[in-house]
């Protein structure tokens, strides 16, 4: 019997349940789809080119994805749970009178609660089924998107259903239902019959703010926001220091007071515009929005803040992802790079460090002596091999030539008599302009240079033609976008600089030649100079700052080939017991192998990062967006349901359907767009700063397109909610005012 009543109620109050249902369905779909990503691994891991799926550590991208998604799903579940509660509260509120009638007719509160529980359950089960179906479709789309993102073709496609994700979804939403049911039961049992029956859902409280106060507060909040933007600009989102905290606080306060005063301010403004104010239903529309904004300014504030977060997450997530993959090709021109970092052996650096960091003068002296000895040992080894790392490796690994098809050594030296800061100043730039920091320790280090012969060897290994330089000429190699202007200035033909006692003239050539395998472009205006500079330094007993040996391998499987190669090397240079325990197969403290990177590993890392960023951005961004849009929608619909008598009156006074619907469109449109506009301003400020200070460092131009995609997605999701809210409201108003009146 109660079941029958519940079924009938659901059918009858379909409209009340519409937004609740849509929200629940989308929530289930998204929750399932993103938790199902892990299980799409079977499509990829056995495929051609599946190496892309495995990170350098050997773990699959999907392991990490699953971990992160599960972690974030907890957050998402909480947000969705609150959202469902919120939407449900409106369903109950709108029907208080109906529940009162049940009680009056002699049903016990327990029975009424169970009718509501059954209704919730019916809607919930339908939403779960529809949502899982939708999620199933979305997860197939995601599988193809994954294939596109990591560049693996799916040859053996079949439909995937993730039981694990479905269980997770069911469990999570079952929990949400239980909470909702308890909440409803408590809410109904605590209600007094008289208050249920006389529950006039029409809002009695309608705060009106003094227009003059509004004007002042509105102007003040604009100023506060401007101040927030400028504060944000100081730290530039590079540091999250005091300015960032002040900016955040100001932004929150400014936005809140903006919404508090906006309605009053705009009324004051519009009342001055007779042409607008006295036009059709403009007065009505304006007052309706004002009444809504004045009562709900706190939730508008929260909505706007959440929107701001989701726009930033959405768009920057995409931009970062595209950045990492754009640079990938440039930075993986060799199969692998073997690195020897020699900067830790710099004795002059060690002497500058206070003694107590070593634990006393004696210890410091001992450490310096040790470094000195190590340096000398490396220097003599190097010298014995004619300065060639490859020759030394060959002497340790008998089948080196079978394993390695080509190599190019690049030694990076730091000039003794010219610092980065001096050179940047001389070219008329500041360190900040080239993406460096005024206080960076690198700024006072010498200018980086490499020898022409090594530069050309690396170029030839990548299949490029060598570049000729006359004696006493230099050229500039730059791979970082941010410093490209500086590189042009530095390489301008005829510029003369003195490096390590040699006077050099710019040849006018500025190239972008990657000299190692790395996950990020890292050559900031490196000088390419005649060989004698390095030769003289070496002869004087100096070592380069960094020595890299780029190799091309015989085997296609780079990670495995390098592992094998290093195992061979480790036979000659065995790791210490400690290192062996940590998994090293060679002594990473010895010259010439501190560590190595393979292109394969870099690509997989980057793909994994890209997937992670894109999916997280989608997941979090979408859930936030959906939450805000649903809250706005629920508010609108309940407000309009309460205001039906007003529309009936308008129709009686002779407003035709067109006028009433135009007003309705304006109300819903403005209520939806206002928080989006505010959030849009905040996002524009934040994202432009991100671009200026962070993204451009890695090549921002390509990210603009993906930023547009992010914004388009935000607008699309928002528009779906706006349109469906309007359609539901429209039918409510037309049927509420009487079809005859608004025919």
């Amino acid at each position, binding site marked *: 019997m109660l079941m029958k009543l519940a079924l009938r109620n659901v059918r009858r109050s379909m409209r009340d349940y519409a937004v609740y249902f849509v929200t629940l369905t989308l929530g289930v779909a998204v929750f399932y789809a993103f938790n199902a990503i892990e299980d799409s691994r079977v499509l990829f891991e056995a495929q051609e080119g599946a190496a892309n799926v495995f990170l350098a550590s050997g773990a699959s991208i999907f392991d990490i994805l699953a971990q992160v998604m599960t972690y974030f799903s907890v957050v998402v579940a909480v947000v969705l749970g609150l959202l469902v509660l919120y939407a449900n509260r409106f369903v109950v509120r709108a029907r208080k009178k109906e529940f009162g009638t049940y009680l009056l007719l002699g049903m016990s509160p327990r029975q009424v609660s169970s009718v509501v529980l059954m209704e919730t359950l019916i809607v919930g089960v339908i939403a779960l089924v529809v949502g899982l179906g939708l999620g199933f479709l979305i997860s197939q789309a995601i599988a193809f998107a994954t294939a596109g993102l990591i560049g693996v073709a799916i040859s053996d496609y079949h439909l995937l259903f993730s039981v694990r994700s479905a269980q997770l979804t069911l469990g999570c939403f079952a929990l949400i239902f239980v909470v909702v049911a308890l909440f409803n039961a408590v809410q109904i049992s605590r209600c007094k019959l008289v208050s249920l029956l006389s529950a006039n859902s029409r809002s009695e409280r*309608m705060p*009106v703010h003094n227009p003059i106060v509004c004007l002042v507060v509105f102007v003040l909040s604009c100023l506060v926001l401007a101040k927030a933007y400028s504060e944000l600009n100081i730290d530039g989102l590079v540091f999250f220091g005091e300015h960032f905290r002040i900016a955040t606080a100001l932004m929150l306060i400014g936005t809140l007071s903006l919404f508090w005063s906006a309605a009053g301010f705009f009324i004051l403004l519009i009342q001055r515009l*007779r*042409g607008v*104010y*006295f*036009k*059709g*239903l*403009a*007065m*009505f529309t304006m*007052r*309706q929005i*004002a*009444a809504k904004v004045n009562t709900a300014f706190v939730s508008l504030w929260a909505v706007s803040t959440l929107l701001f977060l989701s726009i930033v997450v959405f768009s920057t997530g995409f931009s970062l992802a595209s950045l990492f993959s754009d640079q990938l090709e440039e930075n993986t021109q060799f199969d692998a790079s073997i690195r020897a970092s020699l900067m830790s052996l710099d004795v002059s650096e060690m002497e500058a460090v206070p003694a107590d960091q070593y634990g006393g003068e004696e210890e410091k002296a001992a450490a310096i002596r040790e470094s000195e000895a190590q340096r000398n040992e490396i220097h003599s080894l190097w010298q014995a091999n004619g300065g060639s790392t490859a020759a030394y490796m060959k002497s340790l690994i008998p089948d080196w030539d079978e394993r390695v098809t080509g190599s190019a050594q690049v030694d990076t030296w730091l000039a003794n008599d010219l610092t980065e800061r001096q050179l940047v100043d001389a070219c008329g730039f500041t360190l900040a302009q080239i993406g460096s920091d005024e206080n960076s320790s690198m700024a006072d280090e010498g200018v980086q240079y490499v020898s022409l012969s090594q530069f050309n060897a690396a170029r030839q290994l990548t299949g490029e033609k060598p570049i000729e330089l006359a004696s006493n000429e230099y050229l500039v190699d730059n791979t970082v976008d941010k410093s490209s202007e500086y590189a042009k200035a530095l390489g301008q033909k005829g510029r003369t600089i003195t490096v390590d006692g040699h006077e050099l003239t710019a040849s006018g050539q500025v190239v972008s030649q990657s000299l190692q395998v790395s996950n990020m472009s890292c050559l900031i205006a490196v000088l390419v100079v005649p060989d004698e500079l390095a030769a003289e330094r070496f002869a004087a007993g100096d070592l380069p700052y960094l020595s890299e040996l780029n190799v091309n391998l015989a085997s296609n499987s780079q990670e495995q080939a390098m592992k094998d190669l290093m195992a061979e090397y480790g036979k000659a240079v065995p790791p210490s017991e400690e290192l062996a325990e940590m998994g090293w197969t060679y002594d990473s403290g010895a010259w010439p192998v501190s560590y190595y990177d393979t292109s394969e590993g870099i690509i997989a890392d980057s793909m994994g990062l890209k997937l992670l960023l894109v999916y997280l951005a989608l997941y979090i961004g979408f859930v936030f967006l959906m939450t805000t849009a649903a809250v706005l929608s629920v508010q609108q619909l309940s407000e309009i349901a309460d205001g039906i*008598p*007003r529309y009936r*009156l*308008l*129709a*009686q*006074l*002779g*407003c*035709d*359907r067109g*006028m009433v619907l135009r007003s309705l469109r304006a109300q819903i449109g403005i209520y939806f767009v206002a928080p989006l506009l505010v959030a849009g301003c905040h996002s524009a400020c934040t994202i432009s700063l991100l671009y200026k200070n962070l993204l451009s460092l890695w090549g921002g131009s390509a990210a603009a397109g993906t930023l547009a995609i992010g914004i388009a997605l935000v607008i699309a999701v928002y528009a779906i909610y706006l349109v469906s809210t309007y359609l539901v409201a429209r039918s409510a108003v037309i049927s509420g005012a*009487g079809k*005859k*009146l608004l*025919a």
Partner: protein
Amino acid sequence: MTMVTATPPADIANAGRPDSRNVLLSVRDVRKVYGSREAVTRALDDVSFDICKGEFVGVMGPSGSGKSTLLNCISTIDTVTSGNIILNGLDITQLRSRQLSKFRRDDLGFIFQDANLLDTLTGFENIALALTIKGEKTDAVRAKVDRTADLLGVADVLQKYPRQMSGGQRQRVAAARAIVADPKLVLADEPTGALDSRNAAVLLETLEVLNAKLHATIMMVTHDAVAASYADRILFIKDGKLFNELRRGDSARTDFYQRILEVQAFLSGKQGDSSAVGFVASHVSALRK
């Protein structure tokens, strides 16, 4: 002593047709039937009457008599089953939906039982709305609203919201809204229903003023004899039929009121409903205050 007829006199079908040139509203053989074939309710059964320009007509009848249906049909909120309603030469039963809206905003003014002001708008805006939806020139709106508000004595509450006004003020603002756009016909549906007797008197005097000074044509539906006594002429409806007609003529309002009571008593007596007597008595005392 008024002549109370048990059956409508022959000429009542064309009641109030002394001067056909001056007729504003003409209701002809209007029938309104609710329900399906098995259970037919005749809410209006061949009702015909005329209202002249500048007349203040009351429509009385017990609940369920069809007086509200009649009002709804004239205001085009409801449609007739058969018959014609002609306002100023235009047969409004033949209008299409778009034209109906235009008719309502251009030719009619409404006063509802519970004022029915928009609670989100100020008094000024509530009145101005009737002009702006008509497409009134924006320059003229303020002056017209102010003039009407002055006339109805609500100039000092124009900047207030309806919930900040008294019931009487609300109803007078509603009256201002009804006449500000200079409609051909003002329809009032139990305008004093939600007011105490003092405020009711003020409002009714206001309607009298509108009628006398602005020559507004008013049709007021009421079941309150006191309210009805302010009208020039009263039509009684019972069971969907026009039953009787009273003209005030030159008699004083209290005399007219007595005559109304007699007709009402007769109507109630015929129904065998004695409770109506008590109902009337309470209003007599209200009137004497």
